């Protein structure tokens, strides 16, 4: 039984089909990447898994229990954390307070939450900025904050939505290392990415989405050579 099982997931917006008949598994401890051109439906799938949207059809199972249609906060409580493509920091709060909010999901009190928050911020290189207002952070730090906050909720599955966008290669590599470490510790990661550098470095499996449908699902090497994938990204007349 895979940690996350998605079966025949479908979603339309006012007649426009965003996702159609998507099915895939994410095994426990794996790092899976979801890629595809803009508008392919990746974030829509995330939003359905995370409870922000209700699927029009299909099932989502997490740890063998059905979670489709549940509220976002219930899904977080079940063990799934997520980041947002456009980061949503609690701008008026300090960086530390932001992460404490996440840590309070499991911590019995504020003091314990604070300890956990500091530990996570240490891992993500945010400890030095703990008292700064979140609004004053640079974009890369905001992304780290987003990840730290989601991690603080103690998820077993982490959904990362384009976390690498806008980061310089060195920053990207740093974050990749953090994720690798977390995965070694048992965290399962499903990530949406455009930055191929990160995808190739992290992902054990890659799922390719195009026009709402899954057109490929395999190891990075397999997917990169798949003619259907090449066609959708680069157009028909391309030679590898």
């Amino acid at each position, binding site marked *: 039984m895979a940690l996350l099982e998605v079966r025949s997931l479908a979603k339309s917006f006012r007649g426009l089909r965003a996702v159609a008949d998507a099915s895939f598994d994410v095994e426990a401890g794996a790092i899976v990447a979801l890629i595809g051109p803009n508008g392919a439906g990746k974030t829509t799938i995330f939003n359905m898994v*995370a409870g*922000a949207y209700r699927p029009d059809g299909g099932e989502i199972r997490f740890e063998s229990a059905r979670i489709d249609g549940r*509220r*976002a*906060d219930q899904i*977080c*409580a079940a063990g799934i*954390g*997520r980041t*947002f493509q456009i980061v*949503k*920091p*609690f*701008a*008026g*709060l*300090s960086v*530390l*307070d932001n992460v*404490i*909010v*996440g840590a*309070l*999901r499991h911590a019995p*009190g*504020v*003091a314990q*939450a*604070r300890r956990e928050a500091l530990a996570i911020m240490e891992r993500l290189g945010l400890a030095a900025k*703990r*008292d*700064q*207002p979140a609004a004053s952070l640079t974009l890369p730090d905001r992304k780290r904050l987003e990840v730290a*906050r*989601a991690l*603080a*909720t103690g998820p077993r599955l982490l959904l990362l939505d384009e976390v690498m966008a806008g980061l310089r290669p060195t920053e990207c590599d740093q974050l990749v290392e953090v994720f690798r470490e977390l995965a070694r510790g048992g965290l399962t990661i499903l990530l949406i990415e455009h930055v191929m550098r990160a995808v190739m470095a992290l992902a054990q499996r890659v799922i390719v989405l195009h026009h709402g449908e899954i057109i490929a699902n395999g190891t990075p090497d397999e997917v990169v050579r798949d003619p259907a994938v090449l066609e959708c990204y680069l157009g028909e007349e391309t030679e590898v």
Partner: protein
Amino acid sequence: MSAAPRADSTMAPRAMVLLALLAAGALVLPHFAGGYALSLATLILYFAFTGQAWNVMMGFAGQLSLGHSLYVGLGAYAAAALFTKFGVGPWAGVWLAMALCVAAGAAIGFLAFRFGISGVYFALLTIAFAEFTRIGFDHIGWLGGPGGLFLKVGERTHVDLLDLRGTPAMYYYVMLALTAGAFALCAWLLRSRAGYYWQAIRENEEAAQALGINTFRWKMLAVMISAAMTAVAGVFFAFYYNNLFPEQIFNIGQSIEIILGPIVGGVGTLFGPILGAVLLTWLADTLSNAVSALGWNIPGVKQVFYGVVLLLVIVYLPNGIWPPIARRLGIGRRD
């Protein structure tokens, strides 16, 4: 660059010193103040208290209520009715008052949050409920209707704490205790899980949900606590002024007076509502006296003053007067 915000759970030492000074001054005030100054001080405390109560909903949870007079009125009428019709004293009556207001707040909150009403629409909803109740109470003959409900005034020299009849000093101390209690409650709440969750909801509700916060439940809690606290203010109002008129107590003007202190002082802070109440009430009173001293009798001066101050604050110091002062004093962001 402003001082970094505090993230630890204890109040800054400087804030504690400030608090101690305020407390000391407040405790000995009746000794030095004459009758008029004492009643003004009581009024200031009343607005500091209601402002603090309103602040829980707005400053903490981010829900703008412009109909808080509803809770003042319901609380006042509940306790007053129990006293005048059944002889039940305020210490027992306050529980009914709180229960009634919590129910009202819960109803409004439920309707609003379930139906996804927020922002300006939520504010309008709160106004509508207050106005509806105002006109409704005008038609309740049993409670005096538009003619008002009156409590029998006791002797001003004899202190009857049980029925809240007594000297001006007694009322002052009761209100002081209530305000101190509200301050302590809000300080505790702000640093608790509730405080963190409310501020998260206020800053970005969607992100808060993604972190496992049941935003509906927590917003409801803010509304209910705010309503309960305001109910207590209503009970005090009834036993202090001894007369209640629907037109006056449920009036939207009352609701606006309640929000002035926190907005001018600083929404979401602890000292803000107190500072705002002190400043506004004292200045408005000084202004009124100056105008009468000049021999003019112009109704409306005080309100224009309030309006102008509100305008200036919202344009130039939208976070209120307290934050820049706090920075100067070296006190933390959230105090």
